[in-house]
């Protein structure tokens, strides 16, 4: 006969060869490989302090005829530790979900059973197909002061464990992060960035259950975030950005009245608008080179220094008041 046998890591395991007598001549194999006689006590197979690598198929054959007398699949594992359970409502007021996992693997199959009680009423938590370790519940009542009690029990052939969560309806409300966050420079504004986003698509009724938002931003070169809390709207203009610096921006959401903040959204990057650098013509380059090596001041041709009405003198020596002062300053410098 053949069956599955579960044993704890570190246990000593004795396998009998079916109904064979203790003193019968037998051969044991593990996954098709003969097992050394040193592991035998008569016809019994003795495995001491088993570890995970000893999981496998064990077969016992009668000595002379090689008839298969017994077969078992040994699964070495551990009983479950206390499971980790989390419940959250990201679609308030429709309902909430609970998800769970084991802190350490057991290496053998586990089954999970979840119970939800609201006051004296048992509620059904419908298992999700994907992921498997999750179930969801519809709220039958809203605004209740009666707490929910969720108990998750995990069982495997080596033992069981459980954990319980007790919470208020409003305490577990946590939206998903905002979606479609976009940040754009504002033309001709070197210190502004326009940020927009959308409500998370899982939030069913933002009109009746509005969200508020928290925006954080910083230039990549700095570690400190700036924060802005916004009670309505799904856009914001940053007005104090450092010119020319690339920014990283994220947004979080929270129900206006209850619950906790969502995780931060996916980060977006943006750099404020900067003026295009001016193209230098050949004449201008020469003019600049000349002005650098002489004491006279010559304005680049595109630069407007003064209005026409402020000009004094005439002809080649026509200068305006402003230019005159600059030249005077230069003259003093080079005396």
């Amino acid at each position, binding site marked *: 006969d053949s069956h599955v046998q579960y044993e704890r890591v570190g246990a000593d395991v004795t396998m009998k060869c079916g109904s064979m007598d203790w003193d019968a001549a037998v051969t044991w194999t593990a996954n098709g490989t003969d097992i050394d006689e040193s592991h035998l006590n008569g016809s019994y197979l003795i495995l001491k302090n088993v570890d995970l690598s000893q999981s496998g198929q064990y077969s016992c054959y009668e000595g002379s005829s090689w008839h298969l007398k017994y077969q078992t699949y040994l699964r070495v594992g551990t009983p479950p530790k206390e499971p980790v359970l989390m419940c959250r409502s990201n679609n308030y*007021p429709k309902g909430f979900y609970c998800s769970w996992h084991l802190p350490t693997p057991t290496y053998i199959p586990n089954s999970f059973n979840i119970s939800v009680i609201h006051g004296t009423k048992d509620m059904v938590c419908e298992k999700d197909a994907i992921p498997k370790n999750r179930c969801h519940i519809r709220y*039958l*009542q*809203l*605004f*209740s*002061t*009666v*707490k929910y009690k969720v108990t998750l029990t995990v069982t495997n052939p080596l033992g069981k464990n459980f954990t319980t969560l007790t919470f208020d309806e*409003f305490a577990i409300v946590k939206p998903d992060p905002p979606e479609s966050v976009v940040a754009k420079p504002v033309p001709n504004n070197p210190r502004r960035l326009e940020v927009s986003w959308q409500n998370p698509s899982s939030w069913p009724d933002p*009109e*009746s*259950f*509005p969200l508020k938002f928290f925006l954080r931003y910083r230039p990549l070169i700095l570690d400190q975030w700036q924060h802005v809390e916004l009670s309505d709207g799904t856009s914001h203009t940053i007005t104090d950005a450092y010119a020319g610096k690339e920014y990283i921006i994220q947004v979080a959401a929270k129900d206006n*009245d*209850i619950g906790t903040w969502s995780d931060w959204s996916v980060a977006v990057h943006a750099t404020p608008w900067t003026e295009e650098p001016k193209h230098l013509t050949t004449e201008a380059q020469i003019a600049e080179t000349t002005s650098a090596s002489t004491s006279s001041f010559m304005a680049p041709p595109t630069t407007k220094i003064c209005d026409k009405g402020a000009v004094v003198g005439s002809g080649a020596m026509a200068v305006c008041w402003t230019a005159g002062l600059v030249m005077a300053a230069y003259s003093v410098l080079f005396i």
Partner: protein
Amino acid sequence: MAAADSPSAALRRDLCSRGIRLAGKMRADVVDLLDAYVEQQGLDPSASVAAMDGVPLAAVERWDEQTGTQRLLENLAAYRAFRALLAQMLEEQREQLGEADAGLGRALAAVLLQVSAFAYHLEELLRLESRGIPGEEEEEEEDGPPPLPRLSLFEQKLRGLGVLRELAQWALRSVRDLRQLAKPSPAPGTAPGLADSP
């Protein structure tokens, strides 16, 4: 694009907005009062309190299916009950504690004032919808809130905890209810707001 608001629709929206602010402020104050109450009365903040006679429960099934009128009437009935309950709590507080918890007494009185104001605000909304306002005296004669039994000191404290918890939830529910009421009427040409449909 919706047509320009009628004056009554604009007034309804204004009353709802103000009501939302009132209820929000009231909730914040009730939550603070609840924390102070639990501490000063020596109660376990996680203690469960069974539903008590005369304390209106905020819990509701099929909340999203309620009509506007239902919302207003249920809110009004609740806040009228809270007005009486808080008045009694205040009286008990004064009898028992004297000066020691004057701060708690003042906080209770402030919340009582807000509850009264909010009840009046709800009456205004009902008047706007030309709905009859249920008379308090008439209700008392017919069904009457049950006479509040003389409770032990510990029972009084527990009831107070229950009252404040339910009031906090009612304030939250009122914010949500008023947001529903403030929504524009779905069908053009119908009476604004509180037609007897969800």
